[in-house]
């Protein structure tokens, strides 16, 4: 099995979760309803936890420990999609991103649970239940708000329009795509994307939202290869501010 290919896969999974978990944690204490504040924080914690699980697998391949990997790399070393690094915006944008991202995430976890690479399969099987709740949460909110007031529908629609090119960027293929598919490690981005479209469409159809025309939407690629928006580096600097006071210290 190609080690490089698996490492690449692990990095993109872990980096996505770390960055989105970090972004979502910014909402703690600022949410629209106390209960939602709590739910959103739990999911952010889960995401950070998922990234930790995948960085731990990477360590078994000889990569540095999870703290070093997460807190000391620069933006161009991150394999996360650009979707996850975008600022939170207002709650409609965060919710739409959560909906677009977690639906894809759940499909990835379902597929990875069948991976021929056992350590990944194990982690995915174990954590799938958490993501299931994330998707239930996301879909329930979108269904509810997406068919409520004009104000809410308008907000969600404009966030959806804004986020969609970035969401399509999640499915940017890796150099090792075919290899991962051939060896049964991962079903590949095409497969995830096809299933993702089905599922998000099924939700959107129950609302008054419209999925923008995919033909004319250019995906925002680059993230998987270290090419990021101007938002990622400041996020990383902030995240590592204390850690970098003394990276050798135990905090």
């Amino acid at each position, binding site marked *: 099995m190609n080690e490089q290919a698996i490492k690449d896969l692990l990095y993109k999974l872990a980096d996505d979760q770390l960055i989105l978990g970090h972004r979502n944690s910014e909402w703690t204490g600022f949410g629209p309803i106390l209960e939602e504040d709590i*739910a959103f924080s739990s999911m952010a914690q889960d995401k950070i936890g998922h990234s930790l699980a995948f960085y731990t697998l990477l360590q078994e391949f000889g990569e540095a420990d999870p703290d070093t990997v997460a807190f000391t790399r620069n933006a161009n070393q991150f394999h996360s999609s650009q979707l996850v690094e975008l600022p939170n915006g207002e709650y409609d944008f965060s919710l739409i991103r959560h909906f677009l991202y977690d639906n894809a995430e759940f499909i990835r976890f379902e597929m990875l649970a069948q991976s021929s690479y056992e350590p990944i399969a194990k982690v995915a099987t*174990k954590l799938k239940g958490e993501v299931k709740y994330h998707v*239930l949460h996301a879909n*329930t909110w979108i269904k509810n708000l997406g068919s409520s007031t004009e104000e809410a529908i308008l907000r969600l629609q404009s966030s959806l329009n804004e986020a969609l090119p970035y969401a399509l960027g999640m499915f940017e293929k890796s150099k090792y795509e075919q290899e991962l598919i051939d060896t049964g490690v991962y079903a590949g981005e095409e497969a995830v994307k096809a299933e993702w479209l089905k599922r998000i469409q099924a939700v959107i159809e129950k609302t008054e939202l419209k999925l923008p025309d995919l033909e004319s939407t250019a995906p925002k690629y680059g993230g998987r290869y270290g090419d990021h928006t101007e938002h990622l580096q400041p996020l990383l600097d902030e995240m590592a501010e204390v850690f970098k006071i003394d990276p050798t210290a135990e905090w």
Partner: protein
Amino acid sequence: MLKSLDPRVTRLNLPEGALPPAEPKPVLDQFETYETFHQKKEGAAYTYVGPVHAPNEEVAFLFSKEQYSRRAACSGMWVARTSHIMVTPYVGDDENVYDVIRLEEPTERSEQPEPYEIFHLKKRGKAHTHAGRVVATSYQEALQEAKRQFGDKGPIVNVWVVKSKHVLQSAEEDKDMWLTVPEKKYREATAYKVMDKITKYKEEQKSTAP
């Protein structure tokens, strides 16, 4: 713009200085309340854990799951809208409410008997637990049925009665949502053990002391 020690607050782009007085609110700016019941483990009685504010029962479930089961092991959760629960008066800690209250004639009956869930409070300050399910055509009849079936077991200071159809129950196949809860050690007190560090520090101090 307000520059805060908290970078998150800085990003809220709040104006510096005093805000203008808040706009008066619409008449009701909060959701209805739902009551949550939690099952610790398979076979255990569902126990009352508290309310959430939510626009409907599916959202109430989302909220209750994280507010009331993010920590302890959980194998199931029920939510019911507060206004759907009928409540008896409360009696003293050594009394049985079924003996004290006069069971009233039903004001409304359903054509077909339907299931009701019965919850008992055994002691003031504790939580209501699920006593069981009865079939009846009204709340009052359900209460009578409850008295007959489970009304003689020790002090019962208060009873809640709710139609089963008004209780959203978590699905069997969704139990995996709670699978990893007991593993989230970072939010448990037991994960933090520093005695070793303290002892080591004290010893170092002793050995370097003049």
